[in-house]
């Protein structure tokens, strides 16, 4: 119990900030990349569709752990040897990029499902009024799609918080990494990892409440 409090304090003062930094950055860029990839995937032109589809399939088809290792040790390693060490990514930056790219692929598929769930007649009505495709998408389709995708998007955000724990393998001192270091110092693995789990749960539970609140807000304005 005594150790649990020590560990919690350590995690809260160091690891949580790193986890949140990665999460917030990946959340923002994940949605941005996801929207672009989704539009690319639904494009009627071959090239954007091919790029977006390959990106989504590759990310979904490989483990996040492997992506993190490949990106930090593989790509960053190449970068360092090519520039003689002048350009290198810190683990944190590499972690942010990996998580953003990873989340983007899943968000793209969530968006696609949401957009396709909007009745076809909505686009037809908008186009029949002379609205160009993009305007109709922005004014008519996306606002309706957001409502249906909010639950899955919330779920993706929670997954994202948990996925950042993988970055412990590339040396980002986020929550899990702080826990590992603590355990290797104090040898009290039970209470240490219990502390780690508690902190993740508090974060994801808060997020899940927040998403619920947003859903209810949107339902009211309907």
């Amino acid at each position, binding site marked *: 119990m005594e150790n649990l409090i020590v560990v919690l304090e350590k995690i809260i003062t160091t690891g949580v900030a790193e986890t949140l930094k990665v999460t917030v950055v990946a959340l923002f860029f994940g949605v941005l990349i996801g929207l672009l990839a989704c539009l690319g995937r639904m494009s009627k032109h071959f090239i954007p569709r091919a790029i977006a589809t390959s990106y989504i399939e590759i990310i979904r088809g490989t483990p996040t752990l492997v992506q993190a290792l490949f990106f930090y040790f593989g790509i960053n390693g190449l970068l360092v040897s090519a520039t003689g060490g002048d350009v290198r990514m810190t683990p944190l930056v590499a972690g942010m990029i990996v998580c953003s790219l990873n989340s983007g692929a899943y968000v793209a598929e969530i968006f696609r499902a949401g957009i396709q769930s909007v*009745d076809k007649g909505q686009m037809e009505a908008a186009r029949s*009024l002379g*609205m160009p495709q993009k305007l109709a998408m922005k004014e008519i389709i996306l606002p*309706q799609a957001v409502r249906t995708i909010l639950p899955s998007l919330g779920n993706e955000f929670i997954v994202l918080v948990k996925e950042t724990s993988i970055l412990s393998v590339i040396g980002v001192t986020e929550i899990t990494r702080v826990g590992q270091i603590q355990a290797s110092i104090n040898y009290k693995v039970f209470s240490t990892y219990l502390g780690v789990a508690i902190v993740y749960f508090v974060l994801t539970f808060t997020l899940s409440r927040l998403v619920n609140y947003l859903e209810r807000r949107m339902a009211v304005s309907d």
Partner: protein
Amino acid sequence: MIKVNNLYKSFGKLEVLKGINEVIEKNEVVCVIGPSGSGKSTFLRCLNLLEEPTDGDIIIDGVKINDPAQDINEIRKEMGMVFQSFNLFPHKTTLENITLAPMKVNKLSQEDAEKIGRELLERVGLSDKADVYPRALSGGQKQRVAIARALAMQPKIMLFDEPTSALDPEMVGEVLEVMRELAHQGMTMVIVTHEMGFAREVANRVLFMDGGNIVEQGTPSELFDNPQNERTQSFLSKVL
């Protein structure tokens, strides 16, 4: 005003329109009747290119609209469309449904757009519903809003795709009343409908379609009282 030359449309291997030729004059009200699957709706949807013709020309005011170089949005501004399933925007109020396109497409100020919107709502008898969302409207009210929304772009032509088919019977009248009014004001209208009484009363000309062709056409009295074609006779004997 609308000239259709040799219009073909296929969906995959299924040929829905088989060489339609038709001229619709300004201020004309044309009703299109015929059995399900005869291509009526597809024909109508080709007129504003919601369906891309496989072959043939659609010429509106001398401009071939199914030309890839043609900006279709410019043409659609001039053609309103009313759908069987209303297709109101559920996340916008009644008034916003009407003002959206005038503001975003025609760049009207919010004030001007709302003025037009309120006038139109009054015209379709729904002044008191400006600030409600579509889900709070009955089917007939929704369709009247949809008509107002299309009229807000001040179109030269109005297309109606079975506007009363999704309505409860007691609501058909209120929608037809709005359309009747529009016809009397000289709007050029093409109406796909199953309301034979309405077609007889309002149309200048009735087209009977079957199997992807216009089989017979004429004034309502010619077509309804004295149909020449066997298929027209057989169809009318079932519906009248």
